[in-house]
């Protein structure tokens, strides 16, 4: 356990050194908050661009607070996923390429603790950034539109966090299975995209798909109650995460022994 803690602390320290603790949360804040701010000032923005005939009346019905918050959240499933994948794709593959992994693994370090400590470090960063970013989006939505109940906020936060954790685990899996960080990132992004598109298109068949968690989170925000399939989807996501972690340790061990 103490060995795992040392590796974990090394991860946290490394993320301080390359400023991940600063830029990822800030990016998540800016991504989320831009949504309530731009929809609030939309009439003014249209007016300032001009080009409208005199006396034209633009009547945009103000969106509900839940809808604004949901669209802020949806930013994280596109650009947020991109940032998570690009910033964690090198987490194992990069270290193996540069030889740091070999340097650590000559010591009696379990492969399990090596992979899981890296995964846990990134996990902490993702959940922290998502929380900070989403909390500020919630606050701005409350200030500019209407307050959404804090319990709804927390529930949709957990649903979204689970989906991002699945994405993170996919990235860690490919990072340990492949040597090139760029390849790992590309395959993880492609896989995430395919899963989201399929689950969106066949939503009545794939109710348990982890990618559906994003639409359950926005459904929760607009309807105010937890969609019925959210529970099985969350359980399946947790199982997928465990399976992916186990597989990445297994593959990593095999590759490392072969090399």
């Amino acid at each position, binding site marked *: 356990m103490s060995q795992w803690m040392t590796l974990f602390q090394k991860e946290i320290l490394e993320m301080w050194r*390359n*400023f991940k603790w600063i*830029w990822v949360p800030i990016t998540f*804040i800016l991504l989320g908050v831009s949504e309530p701010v731009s929809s609030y000032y939309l009439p003014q923005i249209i007016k300032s661009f001009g080009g409208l005939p005199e006396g034209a009346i633009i009547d945009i019905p103000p969106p509900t607070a839940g809808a604004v918050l949901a669209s802020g959240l949806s930013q994280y499933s596109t650009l947020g996923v991109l940032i998570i994948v*690009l910033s964690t794709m090198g987490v194992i593959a990069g270290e193996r390429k540069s030889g740091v992994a070999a340097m650590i693994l000559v010591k009696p370090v379990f492969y399990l603790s090596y992979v899981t400590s890296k995964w846990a470090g990134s996990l902490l960063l993702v959940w922290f950034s998502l929380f900070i970013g989403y909390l500020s989006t919630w606050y701005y939505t409350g200030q500019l539109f209407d307050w959404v109940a804090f319990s709804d906020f927390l529930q949709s936060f957990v649903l979204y966090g689970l989906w991002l954790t699945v994405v993170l685990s996919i990235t860690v899996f490919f990072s340990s299975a492949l040597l090139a960080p760029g390849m790992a990132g590309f395959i993880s992004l492609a896989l995430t995209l395919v899963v989201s598109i399929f689950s969106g298109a066949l939503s009545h068949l794939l109710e348990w798909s982890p990618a559906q968690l994003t639409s359950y989170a926005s459904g929760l925000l607009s309807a105010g109650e937890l969609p019925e399939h959210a529970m099985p989807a969350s359980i399946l996501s947790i199982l997928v995460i465990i399976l992916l972690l186990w597989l990445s340790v297994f593959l990593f061990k095999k590759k490392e022994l072969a090399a």
Partner: protein
Amino acid sequence: MELLEGINWGLLAPLFIIQLILLIVSLVDLSRIEKTNGPKLLWVFIIIFVNIIGPILYFVIGRRND
């Protein structure tokens, strides 16, 4: 000027501040790092002139970790 009056600056100021922090942090990192993907001077311009996206782009693709 009429346009600027309707804006709640108390609410928007924090956003400008964190954007500024992002810019400063990326410049500090750029000055410390040995090598980047592509010329260093190019990144200085991207960070300063491309609003918000510039520093993020630098951290995601400009930085070299090995």
